[in-house]
């Protein structure tokens, strides 16, 4: 009995009032991930947009439905917004980077808010959320888009004002990426901040054979913003990544580039 209470108290330090995402202010407020955009001569970003709300009805809505896309730069400052009319039962693959022409940053975040929130969401006291899919073209060398889905219910919107749903952890947490990093590939890791506080994030690279730290990099991320960490040390061997922060879950987007083989891939932790 005492052991069980002790275990619960111990776990409570990590879970009490530390949800992955808080409830939005109103059931009529849609939720979105904070997705990552990249744009430059080498990068194009796309998003597949369709009316999620229409899935929850036997009859398609006749009134116009749309999605608002809000863009932030890497410092978390809102830089643009765009409203896209959604076609009934159709997917629109939108080139996100085309809305960011002239933007000096080459990466940042964006959120997608749907206008169509069906009544059954309200009845079940649930919130409609857009979790992605983003896709990227790198180096424009072929037609293929590389897909990745979102990884956090990060942000909501009310009366055209967005607000974040993440909370800070009481204790510092380690997110250990379960991926074997090697010197035959290059990597870029992007972490977003979905809390209202600036977050300090430390990327630690550890040698797999010895468990010793090879390198550590520290970043400060503003709310709505993101940081990009690359491993640019010429290191022979396999290594892994631990991300320490007060984010409840610091899951990175991982961009992976072959050195000996010429490929690009993206996934999330």
């Amino acid at each position, binding site marked *: 009995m005492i052991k069980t209470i002790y275990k619960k108290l111990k776990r409570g330090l990590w879970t009490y009032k530390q949800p992955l*995402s808080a409830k939005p202010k109103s059931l009529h407020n849609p939720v979105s991930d904070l997705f990552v955009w990249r744009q430059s001569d080498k990068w194009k970003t796309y998003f*597949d947009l369709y009316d999620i709300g229409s899935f929850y009805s*036997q009859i398609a809505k006749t009134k116009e439905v749309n999605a608002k896309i809000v863009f932030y730069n890497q410092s978390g400052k809102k830089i643009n917004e765009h409203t896209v009319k959604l076609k009934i039962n159709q997917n629109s693959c939108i080139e996100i980077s085309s809305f960011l022409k002239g933007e000096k940053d080459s990466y940042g975040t964006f959120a997608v808010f749907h206008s169509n929130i069906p009544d059954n969401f309200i009845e079940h006291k649930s919130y409609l*959320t857009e979790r992605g899919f983003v896709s990227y073209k790198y180096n424009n060398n072929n*037609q293929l888009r590389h897909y990745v889905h979102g990884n956090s219910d990060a942000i909501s919107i009310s009366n055209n004002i967005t607000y974040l749903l993440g909370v800070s952890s009481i204790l510092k947490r*380690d997110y250990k990426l379960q991926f074997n990093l090697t010197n035959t590939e290059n990597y870029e890791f992007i972490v977003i901040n979905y809390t209202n506080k600036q977050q300090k994030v430390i990327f630690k690279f550890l040698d797999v054979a010895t468990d010793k730290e090879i390198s550590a990099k520290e970043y400060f991320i503003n709310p709505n913003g993101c940081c990009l960490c690359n491993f640019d040390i010429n290191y022979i061997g396999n290594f892994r990544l631990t991300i320490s922060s007060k984010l409840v879950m610091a899951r990175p987007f991982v961009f992976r580039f072959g050195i000996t083989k010429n*490929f690009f*891939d993206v996934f999330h932790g």
Partner: protein
Amino acid sequence: MYPFYPLLRAPNCEGFTVVHNYAPNNWEVRKNYEKYINITWSDGSYWHSKIIGTLGKNKSFKIKEKDLNFLPKNTLALSSLSINKLPSESDILPDDIDMQTNLPEWRASIGLESKLGGSTSFQGEGYAFPTNGSLLSFAPFLQHGKDLSSHLIFISIEKSPLFRNTSLFFLNTYGNKIKIEKPIISNHLNIIKLDELDYDPSDLIILVTKNIVGIPLFVTAYKKGEELSLEHTHPPASFAIHGDRWGLHRELKKIWAEKFNNIES
């Protein structure tokens, strides 16, 4: 729940799975152990498990299907890490001490590589699905282009080792017509070529099953594998957060079951 990590297969590609013997966070699993690396597969009557090695704490191991020459051809190979030895033969999917985490789940890197250089992976895991479940899935992944080819990999894992023959239905984007019905088998890795299904670029692929649950993975190759893209669909329950999201999910399934029944009748 005891997770399994499937090994993938796709045309012109070889599957790999990298298992990791360290927890993805520092607070859910306090103590770790050296573990057995297992491969589990079904012959249609029994589950078989074979230890292929041991994995020390904080280590990773890459498993390639081509290295598993003991496997029958076209088998769905499930890798796993266990503290105890799994039974070499059993009539129910074996399991071991649960060391699973939730935030995030304990995952492996599951991917495909091509001889032409392409490599792609995602962080994933698989559990046994109920045999009486159905599936509804919305996928935007179909990419069109003269040098692109796309396949759906449908992975079903059930506790029973039986191979059940059933169907996967591809609906049109309005959900009012079956484009094609494809045979699929439980405890198999079902590979379906998508290019010939006549979907338009603006169509969503809507997948429906009546009596099987699985993970739909979409792989697209550029020039037979110079580049690869791989992603899974979201389960529709993830369109909602908080509240009675599972009740809402049941409602969604009911709406689509009615649509589907109307097509069939």
